[in-house]
């Protein structure tokens, strides 16, 4: 559950249900049900089993079972669903693909969530050993895992919170550590 003051930006994969009350940007995949509350502002592609929208959503939606856009809801984006309910008063614009199987062609396979990103990299090239990631090497020195982008996004959030906890114990160190960084950057 993300409360009305919470904010998430990045890629999320959740085993289970999710209820969003705040700001959400990026990409969200939920194996269970997804609820977007009245106050929520979502700019993300969403995937879930039952998806119900009562807030503002801008992005594609895949519902493996049913999508409900309530009267207070507004959805702008393409939709792949098995069943669709739109209540009077709701706002909706986008392409609708509907029926059994419509949601299957989408990137909504729950188990392989981390898989899609690496999929493009292993192109069947002749030099199998060197291939690993010619494009990735300059970016990330470790050529091993194609999955890290998933983990990276939440990481900065976690760091910030940890810093906050440290700050309670020893108020001085964290700011001191940061200041030199800023100074260095400025110096350059």
């Amino acid at each position, binding site marked *: 559950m993300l409360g009305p003051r919470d904010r998430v930006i990045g890629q999320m994969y959740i085993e289970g249900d999710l209820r969003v009350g705040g700001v959400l940007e990026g990409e969200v995949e939920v194996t269970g049900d997804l609820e977007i509350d009245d106050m929520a502002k979502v700019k993300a592609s969403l995937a879930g089993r039952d998806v119900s929208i009562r807030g503002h959503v801008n992005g594609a939606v895949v519902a493996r079972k049913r999508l409900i856009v309530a009267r207070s809801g507004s959805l702008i984006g393409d939709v792949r669903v098995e069943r669709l*309910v739109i209540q*009077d008063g709701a*706002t*909706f*614009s986008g*392409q*609708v693909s509907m029926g059994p199987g419509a949601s299957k062609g989408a990137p909504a396979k729950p188990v392989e969530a981390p898989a899609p990103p690496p999929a493009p990299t292993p192109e069947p090239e002749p030099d199998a050993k060197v291939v690993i990631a010619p494009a990735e090497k300059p970016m990330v020195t470790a050529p091993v895992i194609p999955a890290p982008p998933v983990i990276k996004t939440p990481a900065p959030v976690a760091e910030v919170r940890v810093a906050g906890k440290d700050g309670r114990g020893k108020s001085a160190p964290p700011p001191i550590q940061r200041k030199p960084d800023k100074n260095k950057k400025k110096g350059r």
Partner: protein
Amino acid sequence: METDGQSDSKRDGQQKFTLGPNDSLEGKLTFGGHMTVNGGHAEGEFRIGGNIEIGNGTVVKALLEASNVTIKGEVEGRLTARDKLTLGKQAKLNGDVQVRRLQIEDGASLNGYVRMGDFEQQAPGS
């Protein structure tokens, strides 16, 4: 809501045109009143000043334009509802849709692009 609309139409004294199971309509129709298709065969281009209702089990292949459109049967073709489009439980709609308000009941099936908003923007994009 729907029944209200019907009784209103009678009060309006607006003409009402009903296509029954043994009727057939093919071609271009422009009509100021309300139109109901209940069974029968309807194909073409219908521009209606009032409301259109497509009854249960009725199949219509047409470009439809009306104030309120209520679909309980099957429709194939572009559709414009100047006010509201309602898809009933058994409804099937295949085609792009422009509406001001939209209500889809559980069980209805829709395939196409939905554009919602006022009609001044009647996108001459094509």
